[in-house]
């Protein structure tokens, strides 16, 4: 039997160009999205300046190093807006309306389809601002080319970790239909990653390292970027990402067994 297989990358490319084209009908929104990112970043920086209180450093972080954390957070915020929200936020709708049937019937992995079908350009301003701020602040903190190259590893791990957490929560919508606010809870907790994890007291730090691994999302990549990362933390972030990705996949397959489609 001959099967025509579209390369996955081309497929994702098609998905994304069509969704961006659709969203571009709302151009005023783009202005608002830029304003939104700008004010969001301003708020974070102002909040951090209050915490620093004019001092040169706080909790072991210089001002520029802390800005690297803010930059990494902004990149992840952009990733959330551009990819996670438009895709994983839709799973619940597919379950409610029974259209998940059609997704499961398609000749591509359902997880891939559900995770990459849409792309919202409203996340782009955050990504651009975040990358710019991260690079600027990392260079100001004395990062070298080797640090920047090495930081790609924990950054990629952070993206995978964040995606897996979202995907697990979105998958629970197969049982609980009202899922929008579970992801809102996750978003609120991830907000803690706007600041380096060491600005929190002991209890918060434990929570944000071992229960909701916010420390691995922004602090570990930022430490690597400013040249004070440790191999142990980088290895741990990669291990965590791999573990969560596998767990998310297994959980999705498990959940599908409980999916009773709209037609049956």
């Amino acid at each position, binding site marked *: 039997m001959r099967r025509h297989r579209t390369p996955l990358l081309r497929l994702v490319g098609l998905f994304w160009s069509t969704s961006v084209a659709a969203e571009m009908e709302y151009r005023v929104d783009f202005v608002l999205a830029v304003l939104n990112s700008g004010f969001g970043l301003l708020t974070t920086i102002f909040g951090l300046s209050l915490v620093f209180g004019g001092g040169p450093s706080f909790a072991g972080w210089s001002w520029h190093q802390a800005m690297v954390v803010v930059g990494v957070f902004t990149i992840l915020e952009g990733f959330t807006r551009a990819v996670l929200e438009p895709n994983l936020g839709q799973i619940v709708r597919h379950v409610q309306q029974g259209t998940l049937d059609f997704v499961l019937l398609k000749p591509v992995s359902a997880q891939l389809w559900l995770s990459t079908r849409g792309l919202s350009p409203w996340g782009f301003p955050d990504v651009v601002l975040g990358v710019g701020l991260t690079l600027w602040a990392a260079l100001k903190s004395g990062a070298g080319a080797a640090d920047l190259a090495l930081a790609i590893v924990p950054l990629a791990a952070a993206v995978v970790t964040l995606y897996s957490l979202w995907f697990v929560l979105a998958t629970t919508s197969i049982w609980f239909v009202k899922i929008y*606010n579970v992801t809102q809870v996750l978003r609120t907790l991830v907000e803690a990653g706007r600041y380096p994890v060491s600005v929190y007291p002991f209890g918060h730090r434990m929570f944000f390292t071992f229960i909701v691994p916010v420390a691995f999302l922004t602090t570990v990549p930022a430490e690597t970027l400013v040249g004070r990362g440790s191999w142990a933390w980088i290895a741990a972030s990669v291990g965590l990402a791999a573990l969560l990705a596998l767990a998310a996949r297994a959980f999705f397959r498990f959940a599908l067994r409980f999916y009773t489609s709209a037609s049956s």
Partner: protein
Amino acid sequence: MIGRALRQARALLSVRYAEMLEYRAELVLWMLAGSMPLILMGVWMKVAATRPLGLEPVDFARYFLVLFLVRQATVVWVIWEFQEKVLTGALSQRLLQPIDPVWNEVAKHVAERFARLPFVVVLVALFFALYPDARWVPHPWALLSGLLLTIAAFAVRFAIQYTLSMMAFWTERAGSLQSVWFHLYVLFSGMLAPLSMYPESVRTFAELTPFPYLVYVPVAATLDHPAFPVDVPRACAVMAAWGVAFVVLNRVLWRRGLRQYSGMGA
């Protein structure tokens, strides 16, 4: 006429309250989604422990706990529902009812407060159990003025957001306006830190906007602490002025918007 209004209010509230009780699990999640003040509490307790601010860590614990409560009591989401109603045309059915559609939304918000209350009480009890040093009994007058200002803050916040909602008649995404507005609210309301920690110039600017009255003022009035100064009578007057201004603007936009509205059945 007053009797009729009271009967209508009772009917609306009891229906909406029953409806909210169906979504109790969801209410818990919404409550947790508002836990940002508890995260910032940690940061500021650490700041107070490392640097002399004239405030103890326990003062920050109380500030952010009361802030959490005020935020829980003043949550408003009317713009998202209103936008949906205008876009889908569901507003048309509401317009047929012999009562202004806003009262349905107000009833939902008020009923939700009462449905949420038990969970909030449990969370506060848990907080005091984990952190006994933060326990304190507010002065009855402080508590009363804090409560009244919280109710006023809810009313003003609702008026403002319902006014922004009117944009749904002209643009398809009034919600995006709300997102921008929300950043300003976080920035200037005293959510990031007590307003008294802000630089003088930023504080002066913030006081010209409605934002501090929505969060900082009710919190400071409840705490009644010399480090969180607040002039309660003046705050009441300013809030009343903001409230009236937005209600008037809202009614003007509502009339114009309805002429513009072309949803199904209109």
